[in-house]
């Protein structure tokens, strides 16, 4: 014969959700400690919250967030300004729609791969992979995302600058690399990443205990592997076409034998061995942003100005110039803000902040 459950047990859930009025809550608070059913119900709800709290948050890295933010502002700017980045004839839309349909049907026939039809038609990364030393890898393309899993050996990568939402990632046994357009060499051995050397562009590297950007001339770890690991670092062998995956019919990447990306040459390794993991430019921009975030606009203005002067070709020079104008405006210096905003518009006539810059410039 089964025992009836306490008729107040439902209040455990209501109490947790804040649905009880003050009187009910007080009454339940007096009742629950002496009631086995209600105590058990409260414990069960807490255990459920704990269990579901284990779900990964899946947050993006700062670099991923920044890229997505830039892509959003670019798209929003086009929408606000009423100008698409590229004007297309109506027939092109029809062609694109037909291509989506064809690709979606084609994808549907390839049942062996996970498919999400909304992203099938977007451009994927164009890249080359070279087998520098016994490299073993496999490739997976999902929508606009291309992911290469490097299991062992040393491979050189050359990724063309990515367009739109295209993403290129290298999965490592113990981490991940994401790039936008770069040349780099990665060595994996014994289930661990031994080294990453960047010869062109920037990569975002995530490994246990390390997450950061490596720029051209930089390497991870900062100490040359010749002393620290047995990873092959000899000049590159000719790329082995046998080790390169055959391209899938819908992929745009270049997978034919290609010249190996520059191996870490002696000067490069020598420089990189002493290079900090974070670049001087990154540190300088970070300092300026910190001042700006702390509302120390005078200092932010000076630091951004110095950043633009010292790194005029850095991708952040545009942000720095605009933020100088914004910092001036926030200090109440409308004339200074207008002057810098005009500088911005001259230097970046198609910049992402041109709408706001025009406003600051008084146009």
């Amino acid at each position, binding site marked *: 014969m089964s025992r009836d459950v306490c008729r107040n047990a439902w209040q455990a*859930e*209501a109490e947790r*959700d*804040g649905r009880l009025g003050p009187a009910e809550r007080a009454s339940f608070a007096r009742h629950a400690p002496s009631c086995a059913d209600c105590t058990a119900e409260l414990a069960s*709800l807490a255990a*459920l*919250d704990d*269990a*579901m709290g*284990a*779900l*990964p*948050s*899946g*947050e*993006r890295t700062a670099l991923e*967030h920044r890229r*997505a*933010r830039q*892509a*959003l*502002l670019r*798209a*929003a*700017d086009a*929408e*606000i300004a009423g100008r698409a980045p590229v004007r297309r004839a109506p027939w092109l839309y029809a062609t694109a729609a037909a291509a989506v349909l064809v690709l*979606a049907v084609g*994808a*549907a026939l390839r*049942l062996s791969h*996970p*498919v*999400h*039809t*909304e992203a099938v038609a977007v451009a994927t990364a164009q890249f080359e992979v070279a087998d520098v030393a016994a490299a073993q890898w496999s490739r997976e393309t*999902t*929508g*606009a*995302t291309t*992911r290469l899993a490097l299991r062992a050996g040393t491979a050189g990568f050359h990724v063309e600058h990515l367009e739109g*939402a295209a*993403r290129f990632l290298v*999965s490592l046994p113990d981490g*991940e690399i994401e790039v936008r357009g770069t040349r780099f060499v990665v060595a994996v051995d014994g289930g661990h990443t031994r080294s990453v050397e960047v010869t062109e562009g920037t990569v975002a590297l*995530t*490994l*246990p205990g390390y997450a950061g950007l490596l720029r051209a001339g930089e390497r991870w770890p900062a100490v040359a592997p010749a002393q620290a690991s047995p990873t092959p670092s000899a000049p590159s062998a000719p790329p082995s076409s046998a080790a390169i995956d055959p391209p899938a019919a819908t992929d745009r990447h270049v997978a034919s034998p290609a010249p190996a990306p520059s191996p870490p040459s002696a000067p490069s390794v020598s420089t990189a061995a002493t290079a900090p993991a974070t670049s001087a430019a990154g540190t300088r921009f970070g300092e300026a942003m910190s001042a700006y975030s*702390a*509302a*120390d*606009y*005078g200092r932010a203005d000076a630091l951004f100005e110095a950043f633009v002067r010292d790194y005029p070709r850095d991708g952040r020079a545009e942000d720095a110039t605009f933020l100088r104008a*914004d910092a001036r405006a*926030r*200090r*109440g210096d409308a004339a200074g803000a207008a002057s810098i905003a005009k500088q911005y518009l001259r230097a970046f006539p198609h910049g992402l*902040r041109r*709408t*706001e810059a025009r406003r600051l410039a008084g146009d």
Partner: protein
Amino acid sequence: MMAAQRMNPPAPATDAALLARVRDGDLGALGELYDRHAESVRRVLARLGLRPGDADDLTQATFLDVVRAAASYDGRDSARPWLVGMAVMRARRHRRSITRWAAHLVSVGREPSPPAAATPEAALDRQQQAQRAQRALDALAPKKREVFVLVVLEGLSGEEVATTLGVPVATVWTRLHYARRELRDALSRGER
């Protein structure tokens, strides 16, 4: 002069103020709103069952919706429930779209979660817990899942969720009750 200015830093703008600027074409305000809420919106989308790439795409789409819908914002200081609501509607449309175009396709597996920096034992334990939780969540029907994610995992109030989903508050609590019951059953089965 500077000291006086630094003593009175401008207070952070409310979401409502940022949205008013977005409505006027201020991209900086949109960027600030994105910095505040994009990860939260993306997390909701992922917990509603979207693959990481799709969650990224729909997060972008949601914030582009903001540009179009800023003029109709109701003026609440925090725009998070409003943004989450638009993301949920995007997720529903996405689900229907996928269903219509590729009903017979089965999405196999999930993209691996980013590597954790914990010790191997702790990482393994955490990974197993996360897998059990994910399986249990995946087994919920979409409407129950939405309510559980928004109320329990994201901390929105019943009233906010009701407004977001366009249902009576009582419906929110009923769905949440059944969601919890199913999750508890699923988790206890997983432990046996």
